[in-house]
């Protein structure tokens, strides 16, 4: 049984009487431990797919099974619990809470799952160590560079030991050097056995992931656009840490 199973999933939006099919009858299986990039032109439905996979949103039609449980008609509360324990998110704009310091930001998901104070601190520090940010634990997000913020965000995504990590354009706001560094972090995580799903515009990133899914007009494209997937290039060296 696959970790994630989508069957005939559609997401429709009504905009002024007009129906927009952000996702149109998508079926998809994702196995545990896969490293996948989702590519496609702007507005094709990549983020929508990721939100539905990540339990941030519910589909209009279709069924989703995550780790053995059906989630397409779960309540907001159940979805929150699933997001908390099984899923980690990394966003383009980092999305750290500005009023909390790095350590507190990383502790937050454990606060929601009811982990005790001491264990919370230890696990947060371990996660920060894993991304090389333990020396900045007491800093506010506003005192960090973009790359540092994104590493803190990755630590936060990891801290509850989730099954899957979703990242929506995680390098979109970073310069190429920092982007490479973040990307190598994802490769490490993948090597450690974690399931990672990356939404990206960047062909260079898509090129190095073992599996690519291309979305076009809300559907999964049958044939991958080689240019979009970076496959027309000389296979770039997989960045290593």
């Amino acid at each position, binding site marked *: 049984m696959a970790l994630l199973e989508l069957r005939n999933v559609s997401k429709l939006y009504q905009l002024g009487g007009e129906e927009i099919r952000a996702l149109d009858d998508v079926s998809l299986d994702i196995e545990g431990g896969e490293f996948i990039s989702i590519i496609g032109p702007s507005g094709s439905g990549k983020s929508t797919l990721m*939100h539905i996979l990540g339990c*941030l*949103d519910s589909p209009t039609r279709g069924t989703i099974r995550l780790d053995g449980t059906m989630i397409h008609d779960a309540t*907001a*509360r159940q979805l*929150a*619990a699933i*997001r*908390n*324990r099984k899923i980690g*998110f990394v*966003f383009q704009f980092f*999305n*750290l*809470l*500005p*009023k909390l310091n790095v350590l507190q930001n990383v502790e*937050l*998901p454990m*606060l*929601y*799952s*009811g982990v*005790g104070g001491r264990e919370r601190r230890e696990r947060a520090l371990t996660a920060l160590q894993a991304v090389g940010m333990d020396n900045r634990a007491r800093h506010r997000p506003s005192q960090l560079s973009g790359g540092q913020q994104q590493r803190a965000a990755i630590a*936060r*995504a990891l801290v*509850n030991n989730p099954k899957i990590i979703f990242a929506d354009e995680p390098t979109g706001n970073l310069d190429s050097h920092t982007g490479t560094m973040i990307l190598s972090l994802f490769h490490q995580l993948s090597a450690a056995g974690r399931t990672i799903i990356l939404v990206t515009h960047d062909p260079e990133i898509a090129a190095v992931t073992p599996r690519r899914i291309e979305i076009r007009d809300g559907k999964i494209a049958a044939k991958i656009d080689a240019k979009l997937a970076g496959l027309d290039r000389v296979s770039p060296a997989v960045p290593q840490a």
Partner: protein
Amino acid sequence: MKFFNALLSGLKDVWAHKLRSMLTMLGIILGVASLVGMAAIVKGMENGMKETMVTMGGADKVLILDAQVPPEQEHLADQAPGRTLQDVYALRDSAPLIRLVSPEMSLGRSVITRGQKQVSPSECVGVWPAVLEMNLHTVAHGRFFTALDEEYAASVCVIGTGIRDELFGNPDETGKEIIPLGEVIFINEQPFTIVGMFERYESEQDRRERELAKRRPAAPANGPARARGWGRGNWAFNRKNLTVYMPLNTMWLKFRAGGDATTDVPDPRLDDIDIKVADFGQLEAALQQARNVLMFTHKGIEDFSFRTQENRVETINQQIRNARLSGGIIAGISLLVGGIGIMNIILASINERIREIGICKAIGASPETVFLQIIVEAAVIALLGAAIGVMASFGLVDLLAQISPTLNLPVITLPPIFVAVLCSIAVGLLAGVFPALKAARLNPIEALRYE
């Protein structure tokens, strides 16, 4: 645990916006302060009124008064006997629902002199020892009248400390307490020996003030000494201190001997008969019993009436109720305004934080967690406001006691504090419910996208 964390972060948020939170709390602060303050003032009023009431003999005292005979008995009016000792004996012996009967025969326009000094007593009355319990007097020095004093119509008197102050010197001024037992004073030119003196009657507040003044001597006053103590509420105490009592028979024989032309007997009519009922709950029955007895002794002529303290008690209670009500309304309006202020601020603050709420939801905050977080924030503001309000009410009461010469010291009691704090928590929770629901129901994706 979750709740504790919510509380902590609520406190942090309040601290982060000190000025804003303070302004938000203002309504609650005012509401709580006015509620507690008003209750304290009313309590002070109540205490003062009760004190005065007790000084005048308590609520269970009933006065028997002379009255016009009813129209159907008008032709008998000249046979009306008036109130005499006859009535007193009859009431004492045959009205079991009446516990105490105290006859009084008073001397109008009396002047008491000693050497050059003179004083007009508030009342100069011939009495039985029953008067002590009737008017709640305590003999602090010497003794009261004995059966022999009564029998022989002895020229003895018992005085209040006010009389002593005027004739022998006030201990507050002379610095020593003079107890003039055995001294002779003149009541309307007739010599009387002082055999006893009452304790000094004063209000709770006066006593405290006096003791305070004793402990730290006041700065020497320049200018004429201001007359003190004749303000509202105090008159009852001052009156009581200016009492002079003598045995009933003494009064009768010495001052009523003008007599009645037809009988050669001194005028036997009493000026007052006070009674106390055995059981306050059976007031009506007791009065009926007294009426039956008196109808008999008065040969069926109803030339008397009763005056209970009930009316007075009723007025006092009415005043207290009114004061409570107006205080409650003011406090209620303040709390309402405070609640609206809190709701307003919380709504503004969640609008500011929509994106943050979205982030929290994305990493697993359930709707309940978000709800709890927001509502606790509202409750924290309300609770802090209530705490400050309670403190402010103490200041307010202190200030009132300083600037206003009201003699009833406001008394802060626990129940209004409880009520005020509970009301503020309720207001905070109510004000928080709507914003908290709004935040809890936010769609995480829309919240994340919000700029």
